[in-house]
């Protein structure tokens, strides 16, 4: 008995957390089965969601939607990495570039660029390009500003050492600045993932013919609530996995930099 108590003590958070999730699902199911009159146009229950999930998985529909959405996400996100990191590096390293670009980019970062979505869809079409551009626009700024902050926090001593030993500008970038910026890049990636998912969802809600966001909106319009919940839950699971993976990576790369705001 003492043993069991000790086990509970050390896993208390985990036990309570799991219990509350299971309790929530049970409560949901029981309330709608026995107490609240069930109206399938308005609400659904876990048992029906499970059936819908099985159908969508076995028919391959879910994976197809996921693949379509991921493709646009990966294109936009890659572009954000490839453009955001160099911009941030140069902005952090060159004082005049910082002065010139900072107000402009800060204004863009602070503003809801999602508002451009209808225009982007009209210009680039409902396919891959429009969504990828939207993801890029939303995801590029966390990279720029995190890399910028990373460069700013680079140890001046290390730079002087490389310089003293005859290192060139290129060596500074690749041997000192980039490595010390790495944890910041990962932190930027974590924020960018969330914003990128927003881009995909909004793009697909607005106009698309396939994809996970499109499916959620379509199931909502046609009152197929169990299927809609499958889509929502899939997105939730992915978002949690991606963000917590990034957080782990962040902690491994820079254990001293915990608890950054804006998660």
């Amino acid at each position, binding site marked *: 008995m003492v043993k069991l108590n000790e086990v509970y003590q050390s896993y208390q*958070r985990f036990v309570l957390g799991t219990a509350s999730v299971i309790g929530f699902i049970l409560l949901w199911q029981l309330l709608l089965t026995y107490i609240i009159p069930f109206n399938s146009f308005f609400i659904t229950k876990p048992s029906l969601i499970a059936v819908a999930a099985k159908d969508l998985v076995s028919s391959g529909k879910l994976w197809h939607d996921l693949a379509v959405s991921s493709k646009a996400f990966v294109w936009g996100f890659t572009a954000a990495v490839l453009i955001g990191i160099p911009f941030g590096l140069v902005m952090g390293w060159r004082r005049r570039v910082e002065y010139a670009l900072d107000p402009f980019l800060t204004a863009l970062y*602070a503003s809801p660029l999602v508002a451009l979505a209808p225009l982007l869809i009209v210009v680039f079409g409902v396919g891959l390009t429009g969504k990828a551009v939207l993801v890029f626009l939303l995801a590029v700024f966390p990279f720029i500003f995190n890399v910028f902050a990373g460069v700013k926090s680079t140890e001046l001593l290390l730079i002087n050492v490389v310089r003293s030993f005859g290192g060139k500008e290129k060596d500074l970038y690749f041997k000192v600045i980039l490595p010390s910026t790495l944890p910041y890049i990962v932190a930027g990636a974590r924020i960018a993932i969330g914003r990128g998912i927003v881009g995909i969802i909004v793009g697909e809600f607005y106009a698309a013919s396939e994809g996970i966001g499109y499916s959620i909106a379509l199931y909502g319009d046609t009152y197929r609530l169990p299927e809609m919940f499958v889509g929502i839950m899939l997105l939730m699971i992915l978002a949690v996995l991606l963000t917590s993976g990034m957080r782990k990576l962040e902690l491994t790369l820079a254990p001293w930099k915990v608890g950054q705001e804006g998660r």
Partner: protein
Amino acid sequence: MNSLKGFYRDYEPTILGTAFILLTLLLWQMIPLVMTLSKGMALFFTTPAQIVRTFFDLIEQGELQKHFYVSAVEFIVGLGLSIVVGLPLGIIVGRSPVLNALFDPFITAFNATPRLVFLPLILLWLGIGIWSKIVIVFIGALFPLLINTYEGVRNVDRVLVNVVRSFGANEWQIMKLVVLPNSLPYVVTGLRLAIGRAILGVVVGEFFGASEGLGFMIAMAAGSYLVDVVFVGVTLFMGISLILTMSVKMIESRLSRWRPEDVKTF
């Protein structure tokens, strides 16, 4: 000449920053003068001068005020509700380890997921009236506030709590004397993030299920190729977010002068 140079040196960041923005606008304005746009491109093109003109036209017609009013109500009510719910909940979850463990899986999951995925569900439940937008703003803004309040409460100095307790303070007095003042900077940070999410909720909510509001205006205009109207809406949203975030940022830096400068996150 020398004083001019000195002036430049003193204000270099401001001068370069303003110059870059002005230059960008000027280049944008000059594009149609320099090259002829193909018919397809011209449909999607507008200039800053045209956007300003359309802005004043829309004000004169009363269009803009009407949409702005609806969006503002959604924003204020939604954000207000999220403050009323988020702060007490954050404090409770921060003070009680058991409640914290119970709520944590849900808070983490909902915070990681963009709450916009619930928009179709909320539209189904509440229709396209004003309440569906208020709710989407509310759930968008709730989590940053809740999480930051909770972090602030958790990061309270244990020594201070123990000192106050030794002198016979009850839970409410501990809250008032130590916990709340300490978590205030965190709450303000949460508020800044919440404002961004709230505006996002207004924009996207109005795109899909609305008959009024600035987001609705943008979506309608884009559908009928009125690019200048789209940009009036987008610029207005930009201006509002900038003013709000910057003013909260000013409060923030006053309150947390002693905290180390962190990464810019909106």
